[in-house]
C-alpha cells in the first residue's frame, strides 16, 4: 500500500525568504502523480503544483518548485520569496495511474509566514 509522510508538522519562514517542505512516499508503482495542495484558513484546498513520475524535470509554478527524487521517493516543495498569503496548511499527495485514482495524503505541514 502507498503511504505519504510529511515529517514537519509546522514550519515558519520570514517574509521574502525561502522555505522547503518535505515529503516522502512509498510505492511499488513506477508510474504515478505527486501533488502539493494548499489549504488556507478559509479552507478551500487548491492545487499548488503537480509532478508526473515519468518526467525527470522538476515541476515549477512561479515561486513554487519541487525537488523530485524518484529513487529516494522524495518530493519536497520549495517556496521562494515567501509571502504572507502563503501561510496555510500544505498537503503532499500521491495518486496512482490505475484503479480509482484516489489520493493518498500526508498529515500536512502548517506554514507560518512571519512579517
Amino acid at each position, binding site marked *: 500500500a502507498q503511504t505519504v509522510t510529511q515529517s514537519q508538522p509546522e514550519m515558519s519562514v520570514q517574509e521574502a525568504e525561502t522555505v522547503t517542505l518535505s515529503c516522502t512516499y512509498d510505492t511499488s508503482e513506477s508510474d504515478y*502523480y505527486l501533488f502539493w495542495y494548499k489549504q488556507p484558513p478559509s*479552507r478551500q*484546498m487548491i492545487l499548488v503544483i503537480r509532478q*508526473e513520475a515519468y518526467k525527470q524535470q522538476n515541476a515549477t509554478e512561479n515561486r513554487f518548485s519541487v525537488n523530485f527524487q524518484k529513487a529516494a521517493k522524495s518530493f519536497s516543495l520549495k517556496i521562494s520569496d515567501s509571502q504572507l498569503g502563503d501561510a496555510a496548511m500544505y*498537503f503532499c499527495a500521491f495518486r496512482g*495511474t490505475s484503479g*480509482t485514482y*484516489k*489520493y493518498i495524503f500526508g498529515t500536512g505541514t502548517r506554514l507560518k509566514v512571519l512579517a
Partner: protein
Amino acid sequence: EAGVTQFPSHSVIEKGQTVTLRCDPISGHDNLYWYRRVMGKEIKFLLHFVKESKQDESGMPNNRFLAERTGGTYSTLKVQPAELEDSGVYFCASSQKRSSGRRRNEQFFGPGTRLTVL
C-alpha cells in the same frame, strides 16, 4: 464555472444524532470522491463514485456511514448514529470522466464540512 460546493460548512451534533453532508461537484464531472481528515491526522479516502455508482468504498469506516449520489449529480454522506470519533473535516472532490490518453484526472476539492460530535 462554479467549483465544488459543500453544505453545511460546519455542523455540531450530539452523539447518537444523525447528520447528512452534501456535496455538489463541478458540473459534468463524473467522478466524485469523499475524504475525511480527523484532527492532526492525514486526509483519508472514504469512497469514490463514478456517476451514480460506487466504484470503491474501501475507506468507509463502518456501516454507520451511508453515501449516495442521486442521478450522478450531487452526493450525500449520512452518518447515523454519529459517534465522537466521527468528528473531523469531510472533503468532497470531483474530477472529469476518464478518457484514454488523459492521465491527469485532477481532483478539485470543496471547502469541506467540519463535523463536531459532542
